């Protein structure tokens, strides 16, 4: 074969559609770069896409199609934790490496050998947020949490990760309120928070609920600083929160302004997004992660001298897996990255603060710090 195939499981319809679309742009950029640099062992990379519509069942069908029918070397995605949960067992059975760019549910990849995630542990990320706040001497004496309970990541964030790490940093936890991911009216929760104003409000939720919460907090006149894990990191968050987001501090694994490489990537990305009809101010951490996944695969395939010969497919897939899992920190777009025992990436963390509808970098922490 003159080409080596990579599968791409993306959610072309449903609630992740837009995120998936920008991911595709990032993946395409990476593939072009690799091919421009001579491909893998002289062979070009080619992407075979499968739309899961964000549905777990279809993710499984996708894995089987890509692995068994298209005989891809490895799979980029799936996107969400829900899809990963059912796709990883299927990938394990088919013996094909898969790597998610967004799933961050705790310990999800741990039971699998072929399932990897280019995302970082939320605890590790948030610890660095508190570290930066301390370094910058921001007020952190009192804290509260507000989190969604019907989504496992948000719930773990709100019940365990945020309060424990805040307490460890010396913050006194005062209040905790809960809501549902879909809840639109957070007035009741906010008035409860407002009854006992705190310096920090830790948010455990996705970006949408965070936007709602920020707006309601400001509407009711709460001045506390919002802090969160990477669950609310979204490249457009600053635009969406507007003035109500001022002071919000979050960790992210990708920050466009961090270095030249990132700047160049982001500029190109924004250009391509625009060409595809998407107004973006920057790339999200998922886009960067998707981009890096292609680079990891290319690296591992080169390293393993993968030929793409159908007869050796199973062996070569396993080789790719083994190389990835034992890879020394690889100089990726997001920084030097390697994989831990639990299948999740160890990567640098950038701490950013929102000010006037823009993110500013206020701290950088090296991988595994």
């Amino acid at each position: 074969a003159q080409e080596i195939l990579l599968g791409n499981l993306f959610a072309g319809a449903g609630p992740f559609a837009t995120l998936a679309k920008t991911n595709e742009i990032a993946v395409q950029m990476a593939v072009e770069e690799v091919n421009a640099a001579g491909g893998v062992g002289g062979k070009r990379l080619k992407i075979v896409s499968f739309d899961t519509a964000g549905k777990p069942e279809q993710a499984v069908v996708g894995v089987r199609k890509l692995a068994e029918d298209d005989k891809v070397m490895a799979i980029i995605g799936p996107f969400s934790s829900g899809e990963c949960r059912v796709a990883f067992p299927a990938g394990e059975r088919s013996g094909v490496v898969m790597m998610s760019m967004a799933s961050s549910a705790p310990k999800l990849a741990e039971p699998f050998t072929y399932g990897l995630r280019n995302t970082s542990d939320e605890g590790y990320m948030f610890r660095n947020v508190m570290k930066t706040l301390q370094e910058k001497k921001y007020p952190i004496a009192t804290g509260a949490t507000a989190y969604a309970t019907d989504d496992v990541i948000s719930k773990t964030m709100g019940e365990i990760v945020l309060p424990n790490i805040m307490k460890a940093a010396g913050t006194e936890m005062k209040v905790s309120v809960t809501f549902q991911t879909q809840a639109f009216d957070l007035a009741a929760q906010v008035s409860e928070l407002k009854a006992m104003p705190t310096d920090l409000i830790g948010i455990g939720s996705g970006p949408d609920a965070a936007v709602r919460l920020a707006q309601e907090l400001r509407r009711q006149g709460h001045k506390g600083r919002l802090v969160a894990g990477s669950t609310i990191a979204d490249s457009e968050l600053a635009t969406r929160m507007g003035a109500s987001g001022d002071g919000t501090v979050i960790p992210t694994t990708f920050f466009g302004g961090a270095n030249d490489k990132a700047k160049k990537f982001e500029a190109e990305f924004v250009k391509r997004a625009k060409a595809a009809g998407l107004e973006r101010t920057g790339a999200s951490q998922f886009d960067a992660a998707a981009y890096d996944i292609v680079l990891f695969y290319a690296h591992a395939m080169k390293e393993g001298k993968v030929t793409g010969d159908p007869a050796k497919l199973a062996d070569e897939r396993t080789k790719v897996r083994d190389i990835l899992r034992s890879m020394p920190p690889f100089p990726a777009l997001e920084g030097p990255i390697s994989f831990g025992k639990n299948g999740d990436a160890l990567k640098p963390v950038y701490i950013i603060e929102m000010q006037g509808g823009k993110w500013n970098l206020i701290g950088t922490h090296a991988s595994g710090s």
Partner: protein
Amino acid sequence: MSGYLEGVLVLLAINVVYAYAAFLPIAAGQLNLGVAGFAAVGGYASAYLSTTLALSPLIAIPLGGVAAGLVGLGVAVPVLRTRGIYLALATFALGEIVRASILNLEVVGGAAGYPVTAFIRLPTIAMFALGVTVLVWLLFATRFGIAITAVHDDERVADLMGLDVRAFQVAAFTLGSVIAGIGGGLYAHHFSYIEAQYFSISLSISIVLYVLFGGTQSVIGPLLGAAVFTLLPELLRGSAQWRYVLFAAILIVVMVIRPQGLITGAQIRRLLGLRSSASQKERAA
């Protein structure tokens, strides 16, 4: 067989089981929007049994169905006090309560979901689907099927003809729950992982749509409906982001042409090669 095809067939088989779960109550005039709730009970119960007691899925899945059936039986009497859209809403509420309860049930993982170790493949799933289909077909070849329709059409008269209306309603509801539970068990054991969010109202609604789209008057309807709803989006893959737009448009157009669903009772009679009353009358004329 291609992995893709097998994957799609698995979905089809599971959807067929779900469709029959909704069909039984619909045939008796009950729009059950809680099918997903019963599927959840069956799915979680069978997964729990096969994981903790190391039962074979072949035993655990029917047991899951029984568990769902017991829940169905327990709630049938109060829930069936309501009628029509009220019944639909009551079952919807029931399904959501089941889902929300599982979300808080830490034995089975709560919001984190529940991993299932045992794994079943297409042949097993297809066997279950076939079993359920044959069962429902047989059931509708008996007086039971007629009685269910009679109860649906006119409760009062059915009662006066000596039919135990309540018993038939409860039976249809409960049997539907059992089948839903089996569907949930199949899902759990093929996808190796279940979470409460999957068993949401959207699942219930799509299942009900299979039946309404396929036609509620015959046993083939649910089969057809499930097939269209599973296969059509696959066939439309080529249309990229317009896939579901096209899918919905096709549904709308089909319903305009065939408001009674794809297949109706009268058609079945015609398809089976039986002379229609019309041609007979013409002959008699």
